[in-house]
């Protein structure tokens, strides 16, 4: 009944705002089951076709039309805002841990606030504020971390006492609370009406909207979108935007060439009640009680309350007809625990009468972040879906970023964390998605501590050494489906519950990783780094060199056998990828990139390399096992195994050579370790992996060799100020901004992508600077540990955020890496950041509201580099991350 009411309300407004649609909508209302001829026929072509008339589709249409694009058709298979959008709880909440999500929600809030004025459609916008409750100290810490990042964004937010909670919301039982976070500007809206308002504005700007039109498939030719087939005919188009919500996966698979959009629906329940005796004020703040797994908002004098239960019910795994969404059952037994939590939080509601239990499926993604961007295989095919139940909070911002992406080629913010290309086909299995979303949905309200990892959908991609390492005590984490070692639990050390320890403080693996680091510094360690993305690019003539010289910023015309660290930059000089490239021969190159670059980097190069059959690029990731031998004795191990001299004179730093190791021939050995420590990475054809590993371990025994994991690697890298792409570097960061000018050859005699932007920066200076901070008054044992995303203060003023952090066992201090900006004190305008500006400040890092003094450095401690191999170049790159 409530749903019906919302629907009717929106119909009235939609018609009021759109007189010319009146005849059609009113006639359809009365005989909605009979097929009627559509009064407006579809155009034969359009520049953009958007599929989906929910909040996402209408928001994209709105923003595209605002940016001046007019030739747009929006298709909706049912009625506008009738899917998940219609059922959405309508809470606009900015309290998001991921910074880009926070920005989207903040923008959405501002947009919705003025939407009614702009369009004349009532949106039901009401600024109520929201209160997130903490039942435990750990929860309060996580809220404080969010509060810190909200505050520096200029979004009012405060940590309040339970007593203050009671003042703001008289119905709440506060006896089990330790504190709360209050965000006064969070709001409530009628989400269906927001969507209709956006549609109205878009329609006024010239967007054509067609309801009851379903897209059967998208035609893709030569890797480009050319049109769509609908049940009412074809439309030729340049751009197709898949905003089909929970049907996006199926729609992506409907064409001849599938576009993989990894999302899966789960049932989501919320309760609607009749008004209280004394109807609740519509300005009463929304309550989020994550420890109780519920949210509660005021709704027409009563309440609306739902949550994210521990045992979600995934649905539509096999794909289903859309009509079934209307017939989903209420499941009170399933809702029972949430109802208990609600009555525990608001005992006074016992006598309140139930109106309805709404079952509204929401779509979830494998990593709890939404999906936007262009398909890696079909140009012009864009996606915006998988909102993880925060569609209304993200709707405005997400639509804006996607519109910018389409119009300008890239959004105005770094959206890599949301980019479709962070996934590949490997996340597209229905079984994987079903199992993963069953974990993701409860995670919405689970406490997330540093270094948490998904437990489902694991052991998908593994190194051939997986079993060997596992038997030696390896503890695993996952990246892009690949299992990677965190650290090794020493034998006899019974730390079975080590993985279960969740803490914001010093973790219990501290000493284990410490001893691995020590071994890297004093003897030799081996780390399996097979997950890295590896491409081989070769040509019959000079095509490979010429193309790569244009696409990469460093000079690749080096002698055969040299390894070059270089960025793959965009027009603005920002890092699309950060990689190492070895010149194998005059005409072939071996490229190593971060693990999650497999799809993005491939698509980027594919789209830019000339279409020339004599130029071949191959993804050889699966062909090689990579063993990283780190430490001063690595040279001894390797020379004994190969009977070849490995000293710096014979095998200088940043060098690559194929040689034999043990019985195995053709092992690609590179003198880099991604840590700044001496050593080698061995790229081993997988059939030799076990042999080489065994040989290395046997030979290494006398040199004290041991296994190590990524946590040790990370500590080594960060203490040496190595930036990592995806964590520290992104498409909005240039080499100039992170002290890597030496990896750019501005004068290499030919043009390269991003060159102009870099030259301009060189002339005018940079507006942010990658900086290393050493925490000074931080007690490793007692204080909260930094993670990433902590605000940085210079002379008491906010200047930026950290991007990664680690404990340095050498310095015996925490090291944070992050970007420093220079905001004008009066106007807030961004000014040039000079080394003097960095060096002449007093810095503090804010960890969950507590500030720690920090020393800023623009260059790493040279003492940490135990030896310099090649005079001119020090290895400055790292590939591992969180």
């Amino acid at each position, binding site marked *: 009944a409530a749903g019906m009411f919302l629907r009717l309300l929106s119909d009235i407004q939609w018609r009021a705002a759109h007189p010319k649609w009146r005849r059609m909508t009113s006639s359809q209302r009365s005989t909605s089951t009979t097929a009627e001829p559509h009064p407006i026929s579809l155009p034969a072509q359009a520049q953009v076709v958007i599929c989906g008339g929910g909040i996402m589709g209408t928001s994209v249409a709105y923003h595209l039309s605002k940016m001046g694009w007019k030739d747009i058709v929006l298709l909706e298979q049912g009625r506008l805002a009738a899917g998940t959008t219609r059922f959405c709880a309508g809470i606009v909440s900015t309290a998001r841990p991921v910074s880009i999500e926070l920005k989207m929600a903040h923008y959405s809030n501002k947009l919705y606030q003025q939407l009614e004025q702009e369009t004349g459609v009532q949106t039901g916008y009401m600024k109520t504020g929201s209160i997130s409750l903490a039942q435990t100290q750990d929860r309060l810490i996580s809220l404080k971390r969010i509060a810190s990042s909200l505050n520096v964004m200029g979004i009012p937010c405060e940590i309040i006492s339970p007593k203050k909670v009671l003042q703001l919301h008289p119905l709440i039982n506060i006896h089990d609370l330790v504190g709360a976070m209050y965000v006064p500007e969070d709001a409530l809206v009628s989400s269906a009406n927001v969507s209709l308002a956006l549609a109205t504005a878009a329609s006024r700007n010239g967007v054509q909207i067609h309801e009851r039109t379903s897209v059967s498939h998208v035609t893709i030719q030569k890797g480009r979108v050319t049109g769509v087939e609908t049940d009412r005919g074809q439309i030729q188009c340049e751009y197709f935007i898949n905003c089909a919500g929970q049907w996006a996966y199926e729609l992506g698979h409907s064409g001849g060439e599938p576009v993989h959009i990894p999302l899966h629906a789960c049932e989501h329940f919320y*309760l609607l*009640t009749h008004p209280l005796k004394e109807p609740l004020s519509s300005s009463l703040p929304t309550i989020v009680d994550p420890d109780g797994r519920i949210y509660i908002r005021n709704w027409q004098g009563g309440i609306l309350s739902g949550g994210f239960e521990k045992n979600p019910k995934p649905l539509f795994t*096999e794909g289903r007809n859309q009509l079934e969404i209307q017939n989903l*059952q*209420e*499941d*009170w*037994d399933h*809702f*029972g625990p949430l*109802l*208990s939590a*609600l*009555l525990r939080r608001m005992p006074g*509601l*016992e*006598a*309140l*009468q*139930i*109106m*309805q*239990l709404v079952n509204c499926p929401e779509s979830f993604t494998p990593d709890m972040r939404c999906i936007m961007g262009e398909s890696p295989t079909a140009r012009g095919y864009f996606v915006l879906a998988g909102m993880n139940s925060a569609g209304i909070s993200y709707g405005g911002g997400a639509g804006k970023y996607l519109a910018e992406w389409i119009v300008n080629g890239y959004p105005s913010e770094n959206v890599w964390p949301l980019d479709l290309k962070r996934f590949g086909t490997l996340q597209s299995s229905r*079984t994987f998605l079903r*199992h993963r979303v069953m974990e993701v949905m409860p995670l919405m309200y689970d406490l997330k501590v540093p270094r948490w990892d998904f437990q*489902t959908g694991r*052991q998908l991609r593994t190194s051939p050494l997986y079993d060997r390492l596992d038997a030696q005590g390896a503890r695993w984490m996952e990246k892009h489906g690949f299992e990677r070692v965190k650290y090794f639990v020493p034998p006899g050390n019974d730390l079975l519950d080590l993985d279960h320890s969740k803490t914001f403080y010093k973790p219990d693996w501290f000493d284990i990783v410490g001893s691995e680091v020590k071994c890297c510094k004093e003897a030799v360690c081996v780390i399996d780094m097979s997950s890295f993305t590896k491409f081989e690019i070769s040509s019959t003539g000079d095509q490979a060199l010429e193309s790569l010289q244009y696409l990469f910023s460093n000079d690749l015309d080096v002698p055969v056998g040299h390894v070059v660290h270089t960025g793959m930059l965009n027009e603005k000089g920002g890092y699309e990828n950060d990689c190492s490239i070895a010149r194998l021969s005059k005409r072939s190159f071996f490229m190593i990139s971060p693990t999650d670059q497999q799809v993005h980097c491939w698509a980027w190069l594919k789209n830019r390399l000339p279409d020339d059959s004599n130029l071949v690029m191959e993804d050889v990731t699966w062909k090689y096992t990579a063993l990283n031998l780190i430490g001063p004795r690595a040279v001894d191990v390797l020379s004994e195994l190969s009977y070849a001299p490995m000293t710096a004179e014979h095998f200088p730093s940043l060098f690559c050579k194929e040689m034999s190791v043990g019985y195995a021939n053709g092992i690609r050995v590179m003198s880099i370790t991604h840590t700044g420590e001496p050593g080698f990475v061995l790229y081993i054809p997988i059939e030799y992996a076990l042999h080489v590993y065994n040989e290395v371990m046997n030979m290494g025994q006398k040199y004290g060799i041991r296994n190590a994991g990524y946590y040790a690697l990370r500590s080594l890298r960060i203490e040496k100020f190595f930036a990592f792409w995806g964590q520290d570097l992104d498409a909005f960061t240039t080499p100039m901004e992170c002290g890597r000018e030496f990896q750019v050859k501005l004068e290499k005699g030919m043009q390269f992508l991003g060159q102009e932007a870099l030259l301009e920066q060189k002339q005018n200076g940079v507006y942010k600077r990658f900086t290393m901070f050493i925490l000074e008054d931080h007690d490793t044992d007692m204080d909260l540990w930094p993670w990433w995303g902590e605000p940085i203060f210079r002379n008491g003023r906010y200047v930026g955020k950290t991007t990664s952090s680690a404990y340095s066992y050498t310095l015996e201090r925490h090291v944070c890496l992050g970007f420093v900006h220079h905001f004008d004190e009066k106007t807030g305008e961004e000014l040039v950041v000079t080394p003097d500006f960095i060096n002449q400040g007093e810095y503090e890092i804010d960890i969950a509201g507590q500030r720690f003094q920090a020393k800023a450095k623009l260059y790493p401690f040279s003492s940490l580099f135990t030896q310099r191999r090649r005079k001119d170049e020090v290895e400055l790159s790292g590939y591992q991350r969180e």
Partner: protein
Amino acid sequence: FYLTPPQVNSILKANEYSFKVPEFDGKNVSSVLGFDSNQLPANAPIEDRRSAATCLQTRGMLLGVFDGHAGCACAQAVSERLFYYIAVSLLPHETLLEIENAVESGRALLPILQWHKHPNDYFSKEASKLYFNSLRTYWQELIDLNSGETTDVREALINAFKRLDNDISLEAQVGDPNSFLNYLVLRVAFSGATACVAHVDGVDLHVANTGDSRAMLGVQEEDGSWSAVNLSYDHNAQNEREVERVKMEHPKSEEKSLVKQDRLLGLLMPFRAFGDVKFKWSIELQKRVIESGPDQLNDNEYTKFIPPNYYTPPYLTAEPEVIHHKLRPQDKFLVLATDGLWETMHRQDVARIVGEYLTGVHHQQPIAVGGYKVTLGQMHGLLTERRARISSAFEDQNAATHLIRHAVGNNEFGTVDHERLSKMLSLPEELARMYRDDITIIVVQFNSHVIGAY
């Protein structure tokens, strides 16, 4: 003398076991949701056995009940060994080779079965080497045979049954230098056991039955009611075809003496069984083995006793009848049970009781608010009560336990009478067998969604 409800429950639940097939097993989606099993002894010690295991080298799950007679030795041995014989019969040639090579070179063996055992379901440690050697001889012969054909489940089941019975017989004839083992193999051979085994792989359900235990499929009709479909034939005197078969296998002169008082040779209730070499070996062989056997065997009147009218052995076989059934979405569960259950309950009642139990637990009638005036507090109370009902001590967590409760405690109205239950369970050991037999039940629940998707 009166047992309180908790005491009754502790007796009924002492042997209950449940296994839920994990959805996250990462391999394939199983058509089996899980199973419940339980046993209630009447004999002391109980002569029934049960087994359940997942095949690891091939697909599918094995479940079986075994009813022993003249002691539990044979039922115990069959419960330990039969599934290995079946699993080996199903293995492709390459896997057999791989296993043989591993044994040959002393490497770790591929695991063949994952057992799902109650702590009371034990395996004999002493005999494991002997059993293993017999099994190995079997797979070596399979390797030598290498027919190259794909393994048919029906054939595999029949071969496994026959081979194991043959091995039991051979081991007893050969004997063992270890006197304990020697006595054990003789006890196994001279006692007997029936077997009813189900193999489920996707929608393919095979039931192999030897003897008078029974497999029954619970089917939910479109109107929601429950009906039973037999998936095995009892091998006893009530089965005319079986009586015919026995008569066919022996000269006409013996026709009168073959079946007397509904028993084989006037002695044995089941017409097919493992062990029971008294009904299989020639008189000379029986005498030779008993004479050379240990004293305990010679002192035993039963083993020395030669059945009357014993002219043309063998009179008994372990060869099973195999029924194949393609599972349909309406097939909700399978009940495997020894005759102890079927003597007291009609299969139609079994289907109804289990069917209602399973739907009651897993899909209680959903609550719909509809147009009623319900407050949050009332709803909360209602839900709490529903949860409590499910988990209450009286309500069983296990479908097999639930069935045993009905089998033992049902009054003339078909409802559980606590007083009757209490009396039946407090019978002294020596009396119990007169009122009831050992009962062993496995209830396998199927996943209709998965079955429907095939």
